[in-house]
């Protein structure tokens, strides 16, 4: 049999029906080659990273699968004694949170009285913000309040964050306290 005909015969499900056990064409005969070698992207991911869901306080374990530098799947971590591999709807939507349409990727800047967003380089933004902090702090510094030593500025405040890591909250508290800016708050009080 010529190779073409031979390949046609074996690839044509009807012939597989006649030659094989799947007479009615409802099983292996009907299965395409694409279906035959399906495998989940979790099996072929280059890396699996242990993580914790960013949404609520239960702290469900998550497994983050990575393929070509991109998160390819986020699902529950069966090892976690807290969540046993399970997730809620928000936890299950984590991949769409980290790589979905709502993610902002660029610095946006609005000048005073401006009517639209403008571009601004990140390092430039950092520099300007540092200047603003120093200037506002200096212009509002309070050595005393009603005769008692306070050593602070009441002009710089911050809000956030219960969605941040402990290490991040630690740097905020350490830096702002050293700056004398004690009006630091977060969602714990809201």
């Amino acid at each position: 049999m010529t190779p073409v005909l031979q390949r046609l015969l074996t690839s044509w499900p009807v012939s597989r029906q006649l030659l094989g056990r799947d007479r009615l064409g409802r099983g292996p005969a009907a299965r395409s080659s694409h279906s035959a070698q399906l495998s989940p992207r979790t099996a072929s991911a280059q890396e699996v990273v242990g993580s914790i869901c960013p949404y609520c306080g239960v702290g469900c374990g998550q497994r983050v699968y990575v393929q070509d530098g991109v998160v390819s799947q986020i699902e529950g971590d069966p090892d976690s004694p807290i969540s046993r591999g399970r997730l809620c709807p928000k936890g299950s939507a984590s991949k769409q949170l980290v790589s979905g349409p709502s993610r902002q990727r660029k610095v946006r800047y609005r000048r005073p009285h401006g009517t639209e967003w403008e571009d601004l380089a990140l390092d430039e933004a950092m520099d300007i913000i540092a200047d603003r902090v120093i200037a506002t702090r200096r212009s509002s510094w309070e050595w005393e309040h009603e005769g008692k030593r306070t050593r602070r500025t009441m002009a710089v405040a911050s809000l956030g964050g219960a969605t941040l890591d402990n290490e991040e909250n630690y740097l905020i508290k350490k830096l702002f306290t050293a700056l004398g800016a004690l009006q630091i708050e977060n969602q714990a009080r809201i």
Partner: protein
Amino acid sequence: MAECHPVGFQWVMEAKARGATVVHVDPRYTRTSALADVYVPLRPGTDIAFLGGLINHVLNEGKEFREYVVAYTNAATIVADDFRDTEDLDGIFSGFDPERRSYDPSSWQYEGTVAMPAAGHREWWNGAGSETASSGRRPPARDETLTHPRCVFQLLRRHYSRYTPELVERICGVPRQQFLQVAQLLIDNSGPERTSAFAYAMGWTQHTVGVQSIRAASVLQLLLGNVGRPGGGILALRGHASIQGSTDIPTLYDLLPGYLPMRRAHDHQGLDDFVAGASSRTGQWGHMRAYLVSLLKAWWGESATPENEFCFDYLPRVTGDHGTYQTVQGQLDGSVKGYFLAGENPAVGSANGKMQRLGMSNLDWLVVRDLAMIESATWWLDGPEIETGELRTEDIGTEVFFLPAAAHTEKDGSFTNTQRLLQWHHQAVDPPDDARSDLWFYYHLGRIIREKLAGSDDEVDRPVLDLVWDYPTVGDLDEPSAEAVLSEINGWDASGRPLSSFTQLADDGSTACGCWIYCGCYADGVNQTARRKPGAEQSWVAPEWGWAWPANRRLLYNRASADPAGRPWSQRKAYLWWDEDRRAWTGHDVPDCTTTKPPGYQPTEGASGVDALSGTDPFIMQADGKGWLFAPAGLTDGPFPTHYEPQESPVDNLLHTQQRNPVRRVFSRRHNRYHPSGGASGAEVFPYVVSTYRLTEHHTAGGMSRGLPYLSELQPEMFCEVSPELAAERGLEHLGWATIISARTAIEARVVVTSRMASLDVAGRRLHQVGLPYHWGHNGLTTGDSANDILSFVLDPNILIQESKVATCDIRPGRRPRGAALVELVESYQRRAGIGPETGVSNERG
């Protein structure tokens, strides 16, 4: 809990499968109610009346866990004779100063001694009071028969004597039979052999009596012996991944890491005065000096020397309330000029959205760091006030920086979950384009500021320049090492070796530790929070997954799970017990007491710290080591939880003439008017009770859910939930529109008519409720009005949290007016209700 902590709810389902009875008390029938055995609808804001009724019932039936109560609580302690209860002064405790609207707790003290609070407001004892603080040497007088008229037990009985099932029915709207059913279930499932647990969230906290609601549950659980025991306790269900972490390492104005109090402004108060004033000599806080000094060493390193009291003077001082709601008023008054928002959306999440946005319009500059373009970053362009014309974009001078943030998969770091468990999340991929972690942002901001101030010899800048700020950075993004920060939090000794327990902390500057309760999370230089030993390969306590503070202890106060002699109260509930052979405590968890302190230990004269506590004092944070049924100090609004009506309520307080919490924080401001309450004229203009809550499918202020297609389609539009009775009364159509009006503003929402919203019989009248999910705002795929816009600034006096679980409102069919007509509508309601600057501010009725 099934609504907002579904995966946590699996454990409730496991308990139910093993025969536990699940009782759900909530103004609204939720997905938790659907799975509960007993659902109890009650009027929002009446939790203390309900819990007080349970306390009264337990005491009347004599069903308290007597041996536990006598040994482990301050029930037997005798209170000084100048204490007067709310029953004596019709709703007020002794020591109330009407002008300053605050209490002086000196009349609440134990007889003959002064007890220091473990937490909360501790500044009373600074300065003048400091010498009496140390006088806690003599143990307070106690009557173990619990019959002395001024022992805590009898005061408790008397305080709640009028909280009868009938009163609970009239105040809470809970039918008597159902209240008694719940009381019986609780009694039947408490005691040596059985324990009951409470789980709560914002339903208790977001009230003008928030802290006292939780206190009421603590009193009840102490009476029933359900604290420190497996299957007992009170679990707070935190709404964010690391709300617990953000109070342990507090981005909060009133705390230093590890719940050390922030300094208050006093005349020339040194470090030792501060420690003596803020802590008790006995109990865990007896070691406060070591914790504070270690913190100062972690922050200012070499510059912190014994001579300069370890840079204690560098700390800014608090001079009153500086919570977020005070900060917003500072913005409105022009004192606050610069504002950072890190992963928070106050324009939707905080109360009174209008004041939040107007405040930000007064700023010089605003920095917003978030994953998505949240409402708090775009109010100047498309906020509600732009629509009503109250603000014009061109007139707003605020300079706004939006810096994209990295997601949890794009940075290393630890969250502290609702069970005090530190869990590490590893970076999987790099953040895209300009997105950076907040670790990166604040580290480099600090670095740039220090570089700009490098040459300064101005004393103002000393604290910044002396700061230890040299964290190693990795990779081409110069990301600071989160593990380096964690190791600083964990602390090290003089030679730089990581510490493994806060017992190693010294107060001579030889140790540094960023947060004493986290000491041990990096023990042996190993990131204990990153441990992921599979749950299946561990005990049911699973101690080798992550790391729980303090000392990886999973169940606090677990000494109370054994009787005074050290034997488990029952085999069934054994958790911790004294092993006579090994002369040590042992069990399923890290003991919450000195491991080698025998049950019979009695402190020697003059002992301090934990050594001053006996072998039968499980509550090691308290000065007397006992569970406080009566809080002689630490709470600004009374030693016993007392029912008061919320700030805005359609009914009068049936218990006392004192309508509302006398020391709640109120603010008389143009955009923060309150409604008349109870029988006062004008209260009928806002006849319905409104409550805000969350849905499973969305997350708090919506920043992390309303931009996601897969979540937005599950709850696609802002809606309000009303009972069929209210719908009929106001002509509201299922799936039609409704406008909800308060003295602050009016919002619109689609109408969902459902019998899950209970209408209740309260104080002889039929009361309807309006339910509002508060996720929505004007950005994202699914948009809508923000429920919190209709709320006011009115705060719990202890922690200054806003009352967003209950207010009054009116509701009518149809969409809300647009533009300036909206402002007119609100003003017309204010006029009809006779609302002025004084409404709801004073303490008289109305």
